[in-house]
């Protein structure tokens, strides 16, 4: 293996073979190793190539809309014990989430490697939309795998991907969610690896993906750190982010890892409540194992079979998590907590009504977790006026309006029936 350590990372990890302590590595069919070596090499070279970095910076600025702002959320602070809340606005990036940061980086690498086709897995559809967008921009063929269950709950994003020219393949095996979409994308990649790049959407998968996706996402924390220094004159007390696979959290956390005074808080999907066992919170309630090419915390039974997950959020409904998060968890540098569906939805509503920002349901988990963290600090005796919390606002909530409307009862059964009747009548017209 010609694995090369990624330069300039504050933690110095992963090591040359792609491990974060006991986590990470490569647990994949031999057929993929040549492509993973090629990608590792291409990424390491690109990170040292001023022309590549300049081109990526140009795309991030002129196409994705970076830097994203840091918004002072004054009205939200009462929900967090009075702490000052700063929102890192990844929801304002092109395509509506942080996913574009990673995808533009991988698209440039794809071009460098001379490949013309990209494939992706997607849960909520945010990464699928970002990949379809980059494929359109670069002129690549694009296939997105999405669990059938998710194509139903995120139908709007399916339409967006198709509008952008991507082929969306509903996956009907297993649990029909993100886990199975990822399996199907790996199978496609094994068969087509010589012409195709697998654009993984999170800090998961075999080396070099966890490190590479982190490197493309760490701009979130790099910007937020400076913006906070400029605005507040000091570092924040906490950085809070939601964690499914963990790319927005890793991106937000990474620049702060050397800053020991900054708490790093990851919010997993607590589903019906972590204590019920029906959740998607491997770092909170799982155990180490191997899934999708890497060793990390995961939800598994006594036989090592992957367990079904439960979450209102398609993007967090995943039994695994990135290996670097497992490392941060064990080392104590970051803490992780499970946020139940109901608490996340309350936070979504609070944010919408107090700041006029409708965030993705994934992101709402981070708001709930930040409120918990702020209140706990105040209860522990810290002065609320002295607390500054950055919440990574990873995505916007347009795609979730339907789910939220049903959750809050904003549309009645009669509204839905009437809308379907109108649609049916329109369909009858010649």
């Amino acid at each position, binding site marked *: 293996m010609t694995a090369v350590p990624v330069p300039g990372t504050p933690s110095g990890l992963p090591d040359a073979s792609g491990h974060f302590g006991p986590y990470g590595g490569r647990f994949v069919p031999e057929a993929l190793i040549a492509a993973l070596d090629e990608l590792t090499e291409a990424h390491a070279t690109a990170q040292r190539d001023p022309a590549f970095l300049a081109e990526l910076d140009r795309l991030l600025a002129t196409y994705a809309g970076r830097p994203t702002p840091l918004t002072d959320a004054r009205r939200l602070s009462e929900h967090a014990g009075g702490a000052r809340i700063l929102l890192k606005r990844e929801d304002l990036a092109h395509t509506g989430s942080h996913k574009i940061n990673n995808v533009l980086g991988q698209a440039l690498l794809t071009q460098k490697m001379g490949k013309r086709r990209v494939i992706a897995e997607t849960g909520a559809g945010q990464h699928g939309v970002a990949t379809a967008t980059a494929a359109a921009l670069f002129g690549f063929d694009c296939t997105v795998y999405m669990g059938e269950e998710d194509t139903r709950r995120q139908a709007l994003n399916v339409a967006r991907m198709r509008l952008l020219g991507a082929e969306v393949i509903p996956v009907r*095996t297993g649990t029909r969610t993100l886990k199975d979409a990822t399996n199907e994308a790996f199978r496609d990649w094994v068969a087509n690896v010589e012409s195709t790049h697998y654009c993984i959407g999170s800090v998961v998968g075999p080396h070099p993906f966890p490190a590479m996706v982190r490197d493309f996402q760490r701009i979130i924390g790099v910007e937020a750190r400076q913006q906070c220094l400029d605005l507040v004159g000091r570092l924040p007390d906490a950085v809070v982010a939601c964690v499914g696979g963990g790319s927005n959290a890793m991106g937000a956390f990474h620049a702060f890892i050397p800053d020991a005074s900054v708490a790093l808080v990851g919010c997993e999907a607590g589903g019906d409540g972590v204590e019920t066992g029906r959740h998607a919170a491997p770092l909170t309630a799982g155990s180490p194992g191997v899934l999708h090419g890497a060793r990390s915390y995961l939800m598994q039974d006594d036989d090592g079979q992957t367990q079904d997950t439960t979450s209102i959020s398609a993007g967090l409904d995943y039994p695994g998590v990135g290996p670097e998060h497992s490392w941060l968890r064990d080392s104590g540098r970051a803490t992780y907590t499970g946020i139940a569906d109901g608490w996340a939805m309350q936070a979504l509503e609070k944010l919408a009504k107090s700041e006029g920002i409708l965030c993705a349901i994934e992101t709402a988990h981070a708001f709930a977790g930040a409120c918990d963290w702020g209140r706990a600090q105040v209860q522990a005796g810290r002065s609320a006026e002295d607390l500054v919390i950055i919440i990574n606002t990873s995505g916007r909530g347009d795609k979730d309006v339907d789910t939220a409307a049903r959750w809050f009862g904003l549309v009645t059964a009669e509204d839905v029936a009437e809308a379907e009747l109108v649609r049916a009548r329109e369909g009858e017209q010649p």
Partner: protein
Amino acid sequence: MTALSDMFARTRAEGRAALIGYLPVGYPSYDESVAAMLAMVAAGVDAVEVGVPYTDPGMDGPVIQVAVDAALRAGSRVAHVFDAVRTVSPHAPVVVMGYWNPVEKYGPARWAADLQAAGGSGMITPDLIPEEAQPWIAAAGERDLDPVFLVAPSSTDERLEAVARVNRGMVYVASTMGVTGTRATVGNRAQELVERMRTVTDLPLAVGLGVSDGAQAAEVAAFADGVIVGSALVRALGDGGVEAVRALAADLADGVRRT
């Protein structure tokens, strides 16, 4: 020497390739899966690859995905794998085929001990590469089990050598870039890869992925030491039960004996 190595010594002496048949434990039921394994041995399969059902079989195509999914839903557990090995191994050499996480969860040393006690010869690990396999290689070595790795058409010469250094019993040569499943042709990349692998090892080379009938088995048997058949047998079991497995195994066994 494991029973698997003895078997290859015998088939080499007979001047033919060995036939290795795969079926997953618990599909469509535990009893039928074991009956089908014994039936294919009676029909001329030289060694049995006992599949460990796993929720995320990334190296498998649709036929095996559906079968292992059904096996898991019907309650197939890891303990059943050792039961199946114990029942089949008196009749033919058995290698287990399994993804890594169930072994890691069970504990590699305990897995190796139980596999040896059940009469197994070794294990094929489709998602374990030599770099990550040290705990398994050590555990298998303790118990005289063969750790079997995969090589693929994309493997560099350096990687073929790395596999040759740690692999025992037989090498699994993936005929094409892709997942398991039947294919109209096996293609000439398999032969090229077998020839490249021969320059770095004397181990028996068994070709898998895509073989579905006697004619294809004969084609592969002309240049390989072993022919591995999986999806076609699983499909036969699903469509026609144990009798269909017996008939297909007989056709395949005839294929590896053609000269």
